[in-house]
């Protein structure tokens, strides 16, 4: 038990990395061995995550559990401090799960230039970065993990990405999609995180102003929240905002996302959508808001405005897409808009909405990208004008696509609903001190956004799934969903339904933690 307490999280974080190193030692030609090994590692990681969830004391979800706090870079006071609470637990499990599913899906689906070993190694490194971000309780550690995910994703997009040429507005020559996307993804994220780091450092130095030792420790910084105020706090929040908002991504920092998603290989898109986008919004909840609650209140209206713009903008942009993958990518802008709207309300309901919205988006959009990948795999095109009648050619895949699209548009009873509904619920009555009429306006616009979401999803279904297959495909034999796809997707489908019907699966862990967070942060006002 004690061993589990102190080692479980570290194992979840570093096991994939160790697995990657071991995989390096397996000869490149022995693809099966590499796959099996990676699957084993990721499954063990998932099992550990599930065990942690099972051993998690939900009665004390507001506090950190499975904590480890040992010195790391003593000279700068950065510690290897990890732990989970109710907020990070669902995300950690989601992350571990999605990696397993990605490995399974990859079994048969390799984008050029193949090389499964390299790809799986990158995926494992990515897993370490993602899992680490969700458990890090030290700003420097968080920064490291937050950045660690960049490189593998950069290579995934750059090497295995979409090789078609694309005309980028403003560029004279056509550019290969993957190259443009990879560098754009990286530059955007790096830009944000550079400023985020400045913010972290500023917090560090300021935290020493009470005569105490400066610290990067997140819980400690939360406790010293009173030290940060005025212009300083405003600027620090702004710096962190840049870092997190790019990752979310919030309008107008989102333009890397459609490109990256469209260009990335299927598994890359899935991981990007399911987990990587969550790092930003998670950071808002874990770092920005609890440490700088008063400033968060100043920023909340701005965040809400950007969130609402994102909702409407993302949906409208979807309607103009011709590439099904790009459409799904843009849908993330809208969905993450709801997540951010929830966060901006600074209420228990709103932040809860954000977390369940994150989980749901991870499940649903992850599945959508799987589907987009498989569709591309079959038809070798993602142009919706060429697709059609998919439901006739591949009834099972069409059915799953329909199901997922419904989940994505927020159909009640499926996972996507709660995030949207609760975000709106939270906006009706934001934190005292925030303008009610302002947030209610945001709520109405957000609600209209749900209609637009339904619009593009239905439109996409009509284009892709319904109708007669065009002569291009008629008479051709298509392999409907294969074993690996089914194995990778079934858990997502089950979870989408399960979370939809019984949201306590997520909220059971988060609510206490969120209530604790809001109370600690806004006690003075909230009463």
């Amino acid at each position, binding site marked *: 038990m004690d061993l589990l307490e102190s080692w479980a999280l570290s194992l979840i974080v570093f096991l994939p990395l160790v697995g990657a190193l071991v995989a390096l030692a397996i000869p490149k030609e022995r693809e099966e061995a590499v796959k099996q090994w990676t699957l084993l590692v990721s499954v063990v990681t998932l099992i550990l995550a599930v065990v942690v969830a099972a051993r998690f004391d939900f009665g004390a979800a507001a506090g950190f559990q499975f904590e480890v706090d040992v010195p790391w870079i003593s000279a700068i006071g950065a510690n290897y401090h990890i732990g989970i609470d109710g907020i990070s637990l669902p995300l950690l499990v989601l992350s571990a799960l999605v990696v397993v599913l990605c490995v399974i899906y990859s079994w048969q689906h390799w984008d050029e230039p193949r090389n499964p070993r390299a790809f799986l190694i990158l995926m494992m490194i990515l897993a370490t970065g993602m899992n680490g971000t969700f458990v890090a309780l030290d700003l420097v550690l968080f920064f490291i993990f937050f950045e660690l995910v960049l490189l593998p994703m950069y290579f995934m997009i750059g090497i295995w990405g979409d090789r078609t040429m694309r005309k980028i507005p403003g560029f004279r020559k056509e550019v290969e999609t993957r190259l443009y996307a990879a560098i754009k993804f990286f530059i955007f994220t790096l830009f944000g995180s550079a400023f985020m780091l400045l913010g972290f450092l500023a917090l560090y130095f300021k935290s020493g102003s009470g005569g105490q030792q400066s610290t990067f420790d997140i819980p400690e910084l939360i406790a010293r929240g009173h030290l940060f105020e005025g212009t300083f706090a405003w600027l620090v929040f702004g710096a962190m905002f840049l870092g997190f908002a790019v990752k979310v991504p919030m309008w107008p920092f989102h333009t890397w996302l459609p490109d990256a998603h469209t260009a990335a290989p299927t598994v890359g898109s899935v991981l990007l959508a399911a987990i990587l986008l969550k790092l930003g919004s998670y950071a808002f909840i874990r770092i920005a808001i609890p440490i700088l609650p008063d400033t968060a209140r100043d920023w909340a209206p701005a965040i809400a405005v950007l969130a609402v713009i994102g909702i409407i903008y993302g949906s409208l942009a979807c309607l103009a897409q011709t590439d099904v993958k790009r459409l799904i990518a843009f849908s993330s802008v809208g969905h993450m808009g709801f997540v951010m709207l929830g966060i901006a309300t600074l209420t228990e309901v709103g932040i809860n909405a954000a977390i369940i919205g994150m989980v749901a988006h991870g499940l649903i959009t992850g599945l959508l990208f799987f589907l987009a990948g498989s569709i591309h795999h079959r038809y070798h095109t993602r142009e919706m004008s060429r697709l059609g009648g998919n439901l006739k050619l591949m009834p099972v895949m069409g059915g799953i696509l329909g199901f997922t699209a419904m989940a994505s548009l927020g159909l009640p*009873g499926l996972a996507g609903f709660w995030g949207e509904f609760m975000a709106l619920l939270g906006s009706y009555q934001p934190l005292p001190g925030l303008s009610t009429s302002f947030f209610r306006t945001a709520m109405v616009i957000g609600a209209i956004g749900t209609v637009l979401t339904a619009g593009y999803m239905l439109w996409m279904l009509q284009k892709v799934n319904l*109708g007669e297959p065009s002569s291009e495909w008629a008479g051709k034999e298509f392999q409907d969903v294969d074993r690996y796809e089914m194995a990778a997707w079934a858990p997502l489908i089950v979870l989408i339904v399960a979370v939809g019907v019984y949201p306590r699966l997520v909220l059971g862990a988060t609510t206490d933690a969120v209530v604790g967070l809001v109370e600690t942060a806004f006690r003075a006002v909230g009463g």
Partner: protein
Amino acid sequence: MGVSASPHLAAESAAAVATTGGIFSEWAGLMLIGPILAFLVIVLFGKRMRHQGAEVAIGAMAFNLVWSSALLLLNMGDSGVLYERSLEIASVGGGLVFELGWIVDGLSIMMYWVVAAVGLAVFIYAHGYMKGEVRVTFFFAALSLFAGSMLVLVGSPNLVQLIIGWEGVGLASYLLIGHHWELKENSSAAMKAFYTNKVADVGLVIGVIIIGITLGSFHFWDLASAAAEHSAALGPVAVAAGLLLFFGAMGKSAQFPLHIWLPDAMAGPTPVSALMHAATMVTAGIYLMARTFPLYQELATAARPWMIAAGTVTLFGMGLLALVADDIKRVLAYSTVSQLGYMMTAVAAGGYTAGLFHLFTHAFFKALLFLGAGSVIHAVHSNNMSDMGGLRRHMPDTYRTFVMGALALAGVFPLSGFWSKDEILATLGYEGYTVVMWIAVAGAFVTAFYMARAVALTFFGEFRGHGEPHESPPIMTRPLWALAVPAVLAGVVNIPGLKLPWIGNFTSWLSVRSVPMGDHHAEAIDLGLAAAGLAAAVAGLWLGWVAFGPPAADRTDRDRVEVPVLYPLLRQKYYLDHAALGLVWVIRQPAARAVNWVNDYVIDGVVNGVGALCQRLAGLLYGGVDQHGIDGVVHGLSWGTSGMGGMIRRIQSGRVQQYAGLLVAGLLLLAVVVLFVL
């Protein structure tokens, strides 16, 4: 999983004695889950079943009919059944909880029973109707989902579960309307239905949010209590919440102008139309208004005129559209919209019982009419009445039952429609909405007129279609007869002033609820009003027969009375579809394209521009300054300061002197900055 006991049961009940209903209530949730389970079973295993899953769907419905009949019986007579059970599915902070569960009271029992009864008839009928069709398995799965979602909706003890059922119904309607999705018009009709409802749902969702946050609970009985106590918190937002909920109801219950999806929804197979227009979907809005009735009755009274206005426009204006429709299903569709207008008007005016009673009777005769129409279509392979005629002889069962349904719809004494429509008229009169009442009477005339037209064109005259039409098989005609019985007789359960032994009456069934509502229901028949309504119906029937009965029915230009402005207006459905399409076009084309343009050229333009700017700047710095020196300046400097430049002109690629010059220049610059600027 938290199970909340029923805290509301202690509340005062209008019924003399309220029982909990024993196991039938305690396990009533099975009725909600049953069809959903059937849906899952059919999806997963239906293809391997003998009847492709139909047996599962029918079985679930039969079970529901038995169960709900038991509840109905328990609720009859002197005692009522009142029970509620909720399972918490999440606590979300701020004191709010989400729950799933079921509610058993007069209203919900009535709905359970109607859904089960009509549903079973339709399902059985569909088993025959769909023989040889594509995707039968999927069809029955979706039908089960349709019924199941409706039950989740009507069984819901709270607003959140209602939303779940509500949108589930929407989804099922999308699946069923678009059953033949190979044709674009069908999938478009499906989208239109789902989408229009989604628009309306914005109202519902926001309304629910307002109520939920204000009360700290989504519970209907909390809402009812708050309304009854004239809650100070709820008061200020009641009208807004009420109107928003009503907006949601307008979508599902096809109130003007959100009715546009409904006629197109005829694209679905006919059993779908029957189910949708009788028991599920369109009644959801009326049900919601009934469920939240106390809100309108006590607090949101200011919302009621708007609701009545919408209802009145719907009941009359949409009825007119049925006059010019050629598609028999469209006639019935507009008729449904019009009848929904009646119900909505009644409930809005305070006629809780009247509205629901009409819902009750309408469910039977409208299901009957649709199934009859389906039988006809099945026989002639066309929806258009110009391809029918004279079917009276070929399809006797269909003909007889259809006429019964038509007469009931027209409100002919003593069929069910007469009683329910009369109750509405009486309520309107009692509540003082005299003008509305007379419009409703006029609407009755219109109803009778178009039904006469439909019957005449379909069953009388000469057959105008191709081939030899045959009566449908028994599996289809039997459900017709089964529905014909209540279509004719259902009125007797609520004859004003009459309380049947054992059965009691409809009013007393409904009065079983936790919070009194103070609605009005007629205690005695208003003979004058009844006569007026009957006269309107008879006049309508007569005129319709005169205009369209044989031999006029066989004429190609049978719509002789083409009133200049009105006729084109009606043929174009008041141009509402054009308006809606225009709106969608604006969103899809200019708006979406503009956003995409902004994305690609403005935001990305800035991003790429910054990149390009860096490159340009780099080029300028590297090429212009770093490599070539700033020739003039540097030359001058290097000449003057180092003494080297003047003499040595460019050794080799010769930039040494420039570099040296720049070095000195750099020093000077630093000196200037440090000494004078800072």
